[in-house]
């Protein structure tokens, strides 16, 4: 397995400060590894890859990887990614966001990116909490979970990201966890190759801000929790008691060309009509 780490090093910016800025046991570094392996598996040139990240812990990923990187404003990563993809469809554009980033402040952009099916891969690191600001509940915090802004337990329901993006029209929706990292590698690589808007939700534990307040003794326990709770989609569907279980795998896979391709086709058609008229 030595190649795993060596491979990562080929894609990191070595003038950046290491170790990673993330807390001990944070899964973000694992997702970063999946992202790099996904890009590598497809043989993409670093120059042709753009990572647009939002604000929050996940936003820090952008600075570490040796691609074209944009650290956007909070929640707006997909808007900038949309502009980049439409301006230059040759680029592979990846939006890396957190749950607060993608589903709360950026929720409107998310559903519209899915609806217009822009050819961007959205990699969402869902840790159920606002980590960087110190542990406030987010739109994916499970009901009843404690945070600094839900000290009596979260009253509001959490978004079901898969159903949300499916309904919004995404070409691909999948969910993985940082415990099931090889499967996550596969999901990321698959999303990167497919046309249109493909979202990968990566469940990644935040022990510092979420785990400590919700009965986990350490980060390892959170990984064990993921191991127990996450079930591959096929197995999940056969379960009699689905409560507390989280399906992982690919949920939506539609072959719809991305907006950038449909736009180029429209321009081409216009030119033909013009040519025909003249």
């Amino acid at each position, binding site marked *: 397995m*030595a190649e795993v780490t060596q*491979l990562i090093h080929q894609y990191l910016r070595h003038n950046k400060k290491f170790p990673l800025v993330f807390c001990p046991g944070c899964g973000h570094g694992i997702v970063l590894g999946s992202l790099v*392996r*996904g890009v590598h598996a497809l043989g993409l040139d670093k120059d042709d890859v753009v990572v647009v990240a939002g604000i929050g812990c996940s936003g820090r990923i952008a600075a570490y990887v040796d691609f074209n990187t944009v650290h956007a404003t909070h929640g707006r990563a997909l808007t900038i990614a949309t502009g980049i993809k439409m301006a230059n469809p040759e680029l592979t554009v990846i939006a890396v966001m957190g749950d607060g980033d993608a589903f709360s402040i950026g929720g409107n952009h998310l559903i519209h990116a899915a609806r217009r099916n822009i050819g961007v891969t959205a990699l969402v690191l869902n840790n159920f909490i606002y980590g960087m600001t110190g542990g406030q509940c987010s739109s994916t915090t499970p009901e009843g979970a404690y945070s600094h802004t839900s000290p009596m337990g979260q009253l509001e329901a959490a978004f079901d990201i898969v159903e949300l993006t499916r309904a919004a029209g995404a070409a691909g929706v999948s969910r993985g966890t940082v*415990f099931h990292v090889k499967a996550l590698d596969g999901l990321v690589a698959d999303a990167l190759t497919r046309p249109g808007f493909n979202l990968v939700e990566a469940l990644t534990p935040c022990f510092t801000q979420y785990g400590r307040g919700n009965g986990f003794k350490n980060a*390892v326990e959170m990984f064990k929790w993921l191991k127990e709770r996450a079930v591959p989609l096929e197995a999940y569907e056969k379960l009699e008691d689905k409560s507390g279980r989280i399906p992982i795998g690919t949920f939506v896979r539609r072959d719809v060309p991305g907006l950038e391709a449909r736009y180029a086709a429209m321009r081409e058609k216009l030119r033909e009509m013009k040519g025909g008229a003249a």
Partner: protein
Amino acid sequence: MSASSKGQNRVVVYPDWCKGCGICIAFCPKHVLAAGPDGKARVVAEDACVNCGFCEPHCPDFAIVVTPRAANGRNGRANGNGAPAAGQDAPESPEQPQQPAPKEPDKEEHP
């Protein structure tokens, strides 16, 4: 594969990058790693390593490298299908990411 690759692997933890989260220690099926006095992972039973492929991609800080020793016809690539350890700890590993051939197994570049 697990039995045959036993004793064939070199496990290195970069102390500078390890934050001591304990994930590798908790999930290593052969107890190759243990916490040192500083709380960081250190190698205690290298010979027991079967190169199951868990610790390296699961280390959030890229601080572990497992290298097969002088691989003769065996590249030491983790085999998610064959190794019982891998089957146990990474149940959903239907596919291996494509990886390049390992290079300079004994030389760890630490940027």
